[in-house]
């Protein structure tokens, strides 16, 4: 775990309202694993840090992908090259990647942890099929990649007309991230899938117990320590707060 004062190095648009921000955080870039996240703070920002999956890591930089859904994300998107972000991470447990065939399923901003996952899977010699879904073609993240890519849109404006889960065909290892209702559907079909969940977070480091994830066996654990990646069947989906407006 590192606490770095990271300058913003680049910014680009990857879908309607969706942007990637890169920042120089060498120690984090060198150690982050797919599915882990960073907790970001900045002067003039809200009191609490904001957690973001690491989207990509190359060389000295890490990237995060986001949409403006509130105060913090709006401020982050206003940042310019050179502006400094306090970057805490890498945090949480990432994906356990193994096997020869990997199916990646992402809904909307659920694309966030997947470029790293796809990279690791392919460098481990696996064949990656990536199913990416969104409401409309314009909201599809342009940077999904893999040996095979399947697009899905709720309005049918591009690729499969329906959800990413419905568009997916079976595979060995399944990795998924997106709205809770999508992850619940993944859990139905692939109990052993690895899914990355979101909760409100106080600290991101395991000390506040604010990020409780309800477990199928009862009780809660911490999205920021034991999570954010879980075996799909291990989560009590009906008890995990839904309606995260920012997850399109």
């Amino acid at each position, binding site marked *: *775990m*590192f*606490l770095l004062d990271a300058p913003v190095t680049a910014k680009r648009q990857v879908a309607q309202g969706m942007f990637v921000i890169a920042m120089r955080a060498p120690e984090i870039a060198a150690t982050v694993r797919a599915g882990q996240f960073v907790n970001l*703070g900045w002067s003039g920002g*809200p*009191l*609490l*840090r904001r957690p973001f999956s690491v989207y990509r890591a190359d060389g000295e930089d890490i990237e995060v992908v986001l949409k403006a859904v509130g105060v913090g994300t709006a401020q982050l998107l206003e940042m310019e090259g050179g502006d400094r972000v*306090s970057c*805490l991470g890498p945090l949480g447990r990432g994906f356990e990647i193994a096997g020869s065939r990997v199916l990646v399923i992402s809904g909307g901003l659920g694309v966030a942890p997947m470029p790293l996952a796809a990279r690791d899977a392919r460098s481990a010699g696996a064949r990656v099929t990536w199913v990416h879904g969104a409401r409309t073609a314009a909201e599809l993240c342009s940077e999904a990649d893999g040996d095979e890519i399947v697009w899905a849109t709720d309005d049918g404006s591009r690729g499969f007309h329906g959800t990413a889960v419905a568009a997916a065909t079976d595979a060995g290892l399944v990795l998924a991230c997106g709205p809770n209702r999508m992850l619940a559907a993944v859990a139905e079909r692939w109990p052993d899938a690895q899914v990355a969940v979101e*909760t*409100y*977070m*106080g*600290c*991101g*480091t*395991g*000390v*506040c*117990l*604010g*990020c*409780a*994830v*309800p477990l199928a066996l*009862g*009780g*809660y654990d911490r999205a920021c*320590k034991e999570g954010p990646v879980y075996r799909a069947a291990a989560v009590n989906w009906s*008890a*995990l*707060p839904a*309606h995260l*407006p920012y997850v399109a």
Partner: protein
Amino acid sequence: MTVDMSVAIGDLRLRGPVLAASGTFGYGTEVPLLERRALGGMVSKGIFIRPREGTAPPRIAETPAGMLNAIGLQGPGVEALIRDYAPQWAGWDFPILVNINGESASEYGELAARLDGVPGVAGFEINISCPNVEQGGLYFGNDPRAAAAVTDAVRRRTKLPVWVKLTPMVSDIGVIARAVESVGADALCAINTFVGMSIDLNTYGPRLSFRTGGLSGPAIRPLAVHLAHQAARAVRIPVIGIGGITRAEDALEFLVAGCVAVQVGTATFVNPKAIEEVHDGLVSFLESRGFKTLADLPRYLPRD
């Protein structure tokens, strides 16, 4: 010139006046970033005799310069604490106090008795001020008789330092402070969180599943300074100030207002090095004003 930052709280000597507040530093094992030298001590997450699941999510909500939390004292229970954490604490170079909780005075007493003498446990902080539990919690905190009964039950079962953590949800904190002092509390911790509520305009209901939560962070600092000051004026035992401390200047407000030490909570979430920065900032402040020891800091504590 180096400043002597040590403080004595009853029989307990701390190397510095800045402690980690209960529930905001876990069991001290989670975050590697902080330089431990800056820690005067640590209060562990509130524990009950039995394991507790805690409340359903959402458990936290951000507010202007603050946050609401309703964790519901989730914890593994005292046996797990003794098995998993106390042994590690025994090897650390600063004292760990255990924040103890119960649903009756006798439960508090049993918990203290069970932990008394366990290596790694340096003392107790009695939590009679948790706003996030159905039984006990706040009730003990705003009734002087109940507060004294809980303190007495613990005092009888241990020779270790007993601190009592007060709730701000009272019309006169001095009354509670004197009540627990009279039955042998070694120190007071002021204060715990204020009960608050935040409404979600999408669901037309509370943001927190527990409905209400405890407000912490900079927003409450002026209220906490006042309550700590009132407590310090009401008793002769030391008072430890808590509430919205993020920088040395904030800690100094509590110290000048009559506290002997402080605890840092929410600030640690924002800045894992907060305790270090508060401690180091205190040292530079005292140096810049030419004080050789923390004790030389002028206090504002009119006795009337």
